[in-house]
């Protein structure tokens, strides 16, 4: 549904994005993850057909974003980071105007309007001036604007920024509900959001894609080893050395007096052995758990060592996070 190939955009001498490629299948949700200024908005604006790229190609619903911008614009709904609202209009007036410029005729407009108001729960405020709405409602009006002409593709730039936690959950639920029938690209700098709504995650940093995969794959790919965290009640002074004698243990890091982080060979779960070992020595086992890499770790790891990263590939070489 969306194909992006080697997209590059330069603003004067400054490169906003470089050689960005990815694709999204019909009905899937892709999250664009990256710190502010990474090039998320630039990529999205190119997809909307409003910003020409310096090099590369982007296609939405089979239309070229540069050569067929009108077809692209008709087939997608876009919610910019700042919802483009006319505060002096009421919600209904605003959506009516949007419907007209999106090409909805008088026969389709009233029905589309009612439908979208229902969809994003704006019924209670439809007659209110946009200026008087809360931030959460403004965001919904922005979303309604993108959905009004029922486009197959949705591009949402930071759809939950500045909302309170309850509103964030509501918007996420809404997006999840739209997936399947819509192909969605959304950007965020909040990591749990990407995992909550998207099947695929593209991590972008300083204009380059540093990783693209499903969340599970990403953390698996970056994991060189299994890690187990172990808390003991009364560890002996030489506990660290004693653990190292166990087969399969690669390294042991003492987090504090009673907690150890034990790194073991990949694919080898030593939890059972470790439990038996500590219990056998009567060290007072309090906690034993497998440490999985969160997306946060993946993200930090990727963006902190981008010099070692080759386009979408995993991090080569390697030291450890303590």
């Amino acid at each position: 549904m969306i194909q992006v190939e080697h997209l590059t955009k330069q603003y004067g001498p400054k490169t906003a994005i470089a050689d960005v490629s990815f694709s999204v299948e019909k009905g899937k949700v892709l999250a664009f993850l990256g710190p502010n200024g990474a090039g998320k908005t630039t990529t999205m604006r190119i997809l909307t057909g409003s910003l020409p790229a310096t090099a590369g190609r982007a296609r939405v619903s089979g239309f070229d974003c540069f050569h067929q911008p009108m077809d692209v614009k008709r087939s997608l709904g876009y919610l910019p980071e700042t919802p483009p609202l006319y505060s002096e209009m009421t919600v209904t007036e605003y959506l009516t105007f949007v419907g007209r410029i999106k090409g909805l005729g008088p026969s389709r407009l009233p029905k589309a309007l009612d439908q979208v108001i229902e969809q994003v729960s704006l019924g209670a405020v439809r007659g209110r001036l946009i200026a008087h709405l809360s931030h959460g409602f403004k965001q919904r009006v922005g979303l309604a604007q993108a959905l009004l002409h029922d486009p197959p593709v949705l591009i949402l730039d930071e759809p939950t920024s500045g909302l309170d936690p309850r509103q964030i959950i509501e918007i996420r639920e809404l997006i999840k509900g739209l997936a399947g029938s819509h192909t969605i690209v959304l950007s965020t700098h909040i990591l749990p959001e990407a995992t909550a709504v998207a099947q695929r995650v593209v991590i972008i940093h300083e204009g380059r894609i540093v990783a693209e995969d499903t969340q599970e794959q990403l953390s698996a790919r970056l994991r060189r080893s299994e890690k187990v965290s172990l808390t003991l009640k009364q560890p002996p002074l030489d506990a660290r050395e004693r653990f190292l004698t166990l087969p399969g243990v690669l390294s042991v890091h003492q987090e504090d007096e009673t907690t150890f982080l034990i790194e073991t060979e990949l694919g080898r779960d030593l939890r059972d052995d470790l439990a038996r070992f500590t219990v056998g020595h009567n060290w007072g086992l309090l906690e034993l758990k497998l440490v999985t890499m969160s997306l946060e770790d993946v993200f930090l790891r990727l963006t902190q060592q981008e010099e070692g990263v080759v386009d979408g590939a995993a991090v080569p070489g390697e030291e450890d996070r303590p």
Partner: protein
Amino acid sequence: MSPVGAIARKEIRSYFVSPIASVIASVFLLIMGGFTYLFILTTSNRSLQMLRVQGNLPDLNINELVFRSMFHDMAVVMLLVIPILTMRLFAEEQKLKTMELLLTSPLTVTDIVLGKFLGVLTVFAGMLGLSAVAPLALAPFAEFRWAPIFTGYLGALLLGGLFLSAGLLASGLTENQIIAVILSFGALLLFWILGWAGQLLSESALGKILFYLSPIDHFENLVKGLVETKDLVYFATGIAFTLFLTHRVIDSRRWR
């Protein structure tokens, strides 16, 4: 509804929900009313004087004494109020980021520029129409020809259209409304000055070109009641060219 119509309608609406249009129209009409009243008063004083001296009621040319002066002053007042009327057209949308909505909707830049121009032209034409109270109120009490008044209004509409397109262009260049006002003011005054300079250098070719470029003479002909193709062509091409420049400016802003 066509996209141009949708944009034009939105512009007209937004002039009336904010106090801008009503304040500008009030000031415009107040000043125009004041000027016209003074011209009528001066003319009637003069006719009374002549009655006293000559003993009979003189045949004064109302068109010349009242309405020609009224249209001249109208041009000056337009020079002052039109930049304020146009300053928000693009600057505000760029500032509030609503321009993104227009640019990501299936609209061409031509639709946007034309829609905005037609919207503000309609508002301006309404203002102009209201000022026609003056000739209508004077009609029962004095004799004058209507034809030059109609052509004068046509001239005012065309001159206003040219000023509006210049204001639209200025507004497209910035997201700051104050800068938009100053730019359009400056441009309009500059063209006015070009006309004067042209008059002074009227012997030389440069003088003739400058004089042709300035709207003064073209407007003056219409106010006198002369409808000539060359003046109509001047206004039409002037407006079209300025709108074309606006199109280029808006289109190029997309790239940045």
